[in-house]
C-alpha cells in the first residue's frame, strides 16, 4: 500500500502526516511537491496536510488550489482515487471545488487549538469504515477558518447523500451547540463528495495516532483507508 503527502509552500503538518503514515503505520509514503503535475495513479490514496499554504493569504487554500499538483489531484479524484484533506487540506479541496461548501472564520475570530469530540455520522465510507456508527472520536483542532458553511440546498443534498462524515459533539456523542467550537453549520466537522472518495476534515487525526500518547482515536481514519484496500 502506498500513499502520498502533498507539500505546498507553507504546509506544516506535512511532516506529521508523513511520520504517522510511514513510521507509525508502516506504509510506503512519498512526498508530492506542489509544482508536480504528474499522474498520481501509483498511490492508494493521497493526503493534503494541514498548515498555512501560501500563508493562507487572501483566503485559506485559495492560492494553493492553483498549484499544478491540484490538476493532478483533480484528475486522480475524478478517476475515483481517494483524497484526504486535513485542515488546510480541507480548505484547499473546498477552494478547488472537489467538496461542497466553504469555510469561514471561526465565530470567535480567534485561532483555536484544543482537543474536541466528534461523532461519526456515516461509517460507510473509505475514511470512516473502521470507526463504527456514532463512534466518538477525540481529536484536536487547530485552525482559524474552520467554520463550515453551505447553503440550505447544498446541506439538503449532502444529507441526502450521506456526505456529512463527522460532527462536533460532546463526550457522549451528542451534537449540541455547546460542543460546536467554531460556529460550523450543523456542527459539521468533516464532509465527503457524493462519490465518497474525497474527504475533508478540520480535526487533525495525525495528532492522535502516535502510541507515544494515550489517545489513538485518529488512527481509525487511517485504518479505514487501509482496510478499504487498494483504490
Amino acid at each position, binding site marked *: 500500500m502506498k500513499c502520498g503527502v502533498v507539500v505546498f509552500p507553507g504546509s506544516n503538518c506535512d511532516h506529521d502526516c508523513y511520520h504517522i503514515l510511514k513510521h507509525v503505520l508502516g506504509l510506503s509514503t512519498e512526498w508530492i511537491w506542489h509544482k508536480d503535475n504528474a499522474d498520481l495513479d501509483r498511490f492508494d490514496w493521497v493526503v493534503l496536510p494541514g498548515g498555512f499554504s501560501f500563508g493562507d493569504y*487572501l*483566503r485559506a487554500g*485559495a*492560492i494553493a488550489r*492553483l498549484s499544478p499538483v491540484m490538476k493532478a489531484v483533480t484528475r486522480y479524484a475524478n478517476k475515483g482515487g481517494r483524497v484526504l484533506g486535513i485542515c488546510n487540506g480541507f480548505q484547499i479541496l*473546498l*477552494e478547488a471545488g472537489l467538496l461542497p*461548501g*466553504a469555510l*469561514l*472564520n*471561526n*465565530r470567535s*475570530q480567534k485561532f483555536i487549538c484544543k482537543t474536541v469530540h466528534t461523532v461519526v455520522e456515516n461509517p460507510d465510507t473509505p475514511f470512516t469504515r473502521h470507526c463504527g456508527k456514532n463512534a466518538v472520536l477525540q481529536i484536536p483542532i487547530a485552525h482559524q477558518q474552520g*467554520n463550515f*458553511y453551505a*447553503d440550505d440546498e447544498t446541506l439538503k443534498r449532502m444529507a441526502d447523500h450521506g456526505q456529512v462524515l463527522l460532527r462536533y459533539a460532546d463526550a457522549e456523542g451528542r451534537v449540541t451547540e455547546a460542543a460546536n467550537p467554531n*460556529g460550523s453549520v450543523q456542527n459539521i466537522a468533516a464532509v465527503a463528495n457524493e462519490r465518497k472518495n474525497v474527504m475533508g476534515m478540520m480535526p487533525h487525526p495525525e495528532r492522535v495516532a502516535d502510541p507515544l500518547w494515550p489517545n489513538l482515536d485518529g488512527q481509525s481514519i487511517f485504518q479505514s483507508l487501509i482496510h478499504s484496500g487498494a483504490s
Partner: protein
Amino acid sequence: MLAKIHVTFKSGVLDPQGKAVHHALNDLGFNEVRGVTLGKYLEVRLDGISETEAQGRVREMCDKLLANTVIESYRYTLEPTD
C-alpha cells in the same frame, strides 16, 4: 490601468467577521450601528493592455482567484493610471 475590486459575501452567507465587528462597535458605545459587512478591497495595477481587454481579464482573475464564488460576489471598476 487600475482595477478596483470589491469582494463581499453573498447575501445569506452569515459573515462572522462582520458580526464580530458589529458587536465590538456596539460595545464601544456606537449604538447607532445596525449592521456591518466586512469584505475585501483590492487594487490591481495592470500594464500594457487596453481597457476592453482589461475588462475580461479582471473578471477572469476574480473568478479564478480573487473571489470564492460559492460564498462571495465581486464587482470592479477600471481607472486609467498615468
